[in-house]
């Protein structure tokens, strides 16, 4: 990481913790930054992050991957099927392989035959859904503990780490409710509490991707296949091979994301992905086709999901409303400095409305939190889409020798 990048990272982390801390202080809701919340948010965020990362690999090589959902479904199934018989690690491996098969199918349709990539992805989703439901009935109905729509429990576990020497004192510090300090303590403790090895692997895959795609000749060639495959070809890059490699690896990552879901819920269940492949696609766009932003988007989805699901007194969603308005105010104020006055005023107004809602209502229905990530994504796209830069030849079918 360069000096400038690490400074930016620290600055944005500092800002995020400050906002969380302000919200926690005003609402008096310790759950917002507690150890358990953060740990659970990582569990929810990881499969989405893996789907987003899968999207980055395919689209950086110029193949739009709407089929992420289908590849993830294949991954959940693979993990349930193998995990039930041979243990959790076999499940992870099978999830990756099943996802890779999905990726390969997409590559055949989109790269070899050059059909419209969105259509090929949609067809893949249909095929994956049908195949897994079909096989689930055949393979799990008579299995002990299984059913028509779910596998028997996955055997064994993926190691989960808790570092008590860090978690215990930091959690105690979190409960002291000191501004900023307690919240930072909760966040850090969350990283060492029930940390799954799969989450660590996810993190490593993000680091590996940043390095491979942006710091190596391999990555430059792969990205050139997504920016200008004709120019890349003229320089001797084997574009088709790179596209195949990227899309199959994309399928492996999405399959791993699916396996993560099955292992987290200890079984395969029909519909367990619940559209997370599409959400992963959204985080990828949110993150401007880069690993850092994609991870941030996934954490946002995971965090909001966690707060919604562990909400005991209907207060977490209220806290989210306040947090949202603080973020809107901050962005609005920052934008006022630049020349985008109209957008800035829009953000400030929206923030004011949300503050008003926060103080006038005693609680908010969980549906608000359910749709919040999607609305956030739309807001980000609406305000930042001019700054987003997808790969130039993303979605363009490529045939060797045919120029555009």
């Amino acid at each position: 990481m360069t000096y400038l990048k690490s400074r930016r990272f620290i600055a944005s982390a500092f800002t995020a913790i400050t906002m969380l801390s302000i919200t926690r202080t005003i609402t008096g809701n310790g759950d917002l930054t507690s150890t358990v919340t953060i740990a659970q948010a990582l569990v929810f965020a990881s499969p989405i992050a893996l789907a987003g990362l899968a999207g980055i690999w395919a689209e950086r090589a110029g193949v739009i991957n709407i089929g992420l959902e289908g590849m993830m479904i294949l991954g959940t199934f693979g993990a349930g099927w193998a995990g039930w018989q041979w243990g959790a690690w076999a499940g992870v491996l099978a999830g990756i392989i099943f996802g890779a098969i999905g990726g390969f199918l997409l590559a055949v349709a989109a790269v070899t035959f050059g059909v419209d990539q969105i259509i090929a992805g949609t067809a893949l989703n249909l095929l994956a859904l049908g195949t897994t439901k079909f096989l689930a009935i055949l393979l799990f109905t008579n299995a002990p503990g299984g059913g028509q729509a779910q596998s028997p429990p996955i055997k064994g576990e993926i190691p989960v780490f808790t570092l008590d020497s860090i978690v215990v004192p930091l959690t105690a510090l979190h409960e002291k409710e000191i501004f900023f300090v307690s919240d930072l303590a909760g966040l850090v403790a969350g990283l060492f509490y029930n940390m799954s090895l799969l989450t660590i692997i996810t993190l490593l895959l993000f680091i590996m991707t940043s390095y491979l795609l942006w710091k190596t000749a391999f990555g430059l060639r792969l990205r050139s296949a997504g920016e200008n495959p004709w120019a890349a070809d003229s320089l001797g890059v084997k574009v088709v091979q790179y596209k195949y490699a990227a899309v199959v690896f994309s399928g492996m990552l999405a399959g791993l994301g699916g396996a993560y879901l099955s292992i987290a819920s200890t079984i395969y269940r029909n519909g367990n992905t619940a559209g997370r492949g599409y959400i992963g696609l959204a985080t990828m766009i949110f993150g401007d086709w880069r690993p850092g932003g994609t991870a941030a988007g996934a954490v946002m989805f995971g965090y909001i999901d966690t707060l919604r699901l562990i909400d005991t007194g209907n207060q977490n969603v209220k806290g989210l409303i306040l947090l949202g308005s603080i973020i809107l105010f901050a962005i609005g104020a920052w934008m006022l400095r630049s020349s985008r006055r109209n957008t800035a005023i829009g953000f400030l107004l929206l923030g004011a409305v949300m503050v008003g809602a926060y103080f006038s209502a005693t609680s908010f229905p969980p549906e608000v939190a359910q749709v919040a990530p999607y609305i956030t994504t739309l807001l980000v796209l609406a305000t930042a889409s001019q700054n987003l830069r997808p790969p130039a030849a993303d979605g363009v079918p490529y045939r060797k020798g045919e120029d555009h």
Partner: protein
Amino acid sequence: MNFRRLATSLVAPAIGLVVSLAATAVILISIDASVTVIFSSMWNYGTSPRAMTLMLNLATVYFLSALAVSIGFKMNLFNIGVNGQYILGSLAAAVVASNLQLPKVASITVTILTAMLVGAAWAGIAAWLKVARGVSEVISTIMLNFIAIGIISYLIVRTSIGTETGVNIRGTKLIPESGMLRGNAFIDPETKVYGFLFISIFVGIGYWFLLNRTRFGFDLRATGKSASAARTSGVQSTRMIVTTMLLSGAVAGLVGLPYLLGQTGSYNLQFPTEWGFIGIAIALLGRNNPVGIAFGAIFVAFLDVSSGQLVLEGVPREISTIMQGLIVIVVVISYEVVRRNQVKSEQRSVARALAKQEVSA
């Protein structure tokens, strides 16, 4: 020439059908099921009067869904948001219709207009985001689908819009009989063919007319073929995008109505929410042509209905979803292969003609 075009456009679906049937046969053999027994059981049940009725009813829904998608396709717009547009449209239609005390024709007209308006409005958000903010409609409509599900679950679970309609099923108040369009049982004495079938045929004719016989349709097709050429000849692309998305959304709003007005009479939490995706597949199979779409819709509905009996043979009915997925993949690939061969043979005939000229010169 026209005959040749028709022939080439039929080749791809035929290949798709054959390959997917073959693949299905392989799957059936691999699970030790008898291919002939399964296919003949699907055929026998699928051609029974009751199944034919169910098939027409489902096909009505699929037809509308595919029409909505294909309006966008004609202009290279991907409306993946049919799901969100039709569930919101159906909910609004159910709420309005259940509060109407009007003669049948008036009530149904109001219901239809409500559904179209809400569907169009929801698609309009995606249109605005695309035109004003440059957001791809693919991703915005996916987000809007999720948001629509949240809104509906809120309205039905937490507001007075929802009431207990059945055993633990919350939904809207029942629509009075005067507002329903239950149809007639003219194929099978026990099951009614949705009255909405005829309305959707009109929508199909309207679609054909709009696209092939109006200035707007010409502009739309021109923009789809070449956006830059259309712009140069004076077509306003932003206006075209907005109008197309609104139209697509309006038709999408209708997708749930055959079922709502013909069957449930209430929008409840078990109302199907995924009819939009199959529309994408059918629009492809039918090549965005209303007649082709009608055949595609009937075919897919046939697979869905006839597979319902397979449980008796020990084969999961999801085999029909697998077949649908296979058909779509194979058909789009064969369309592409056929197109390439066409281009190649055209190039060859041009080359031949040119070579002849040179010789004679």
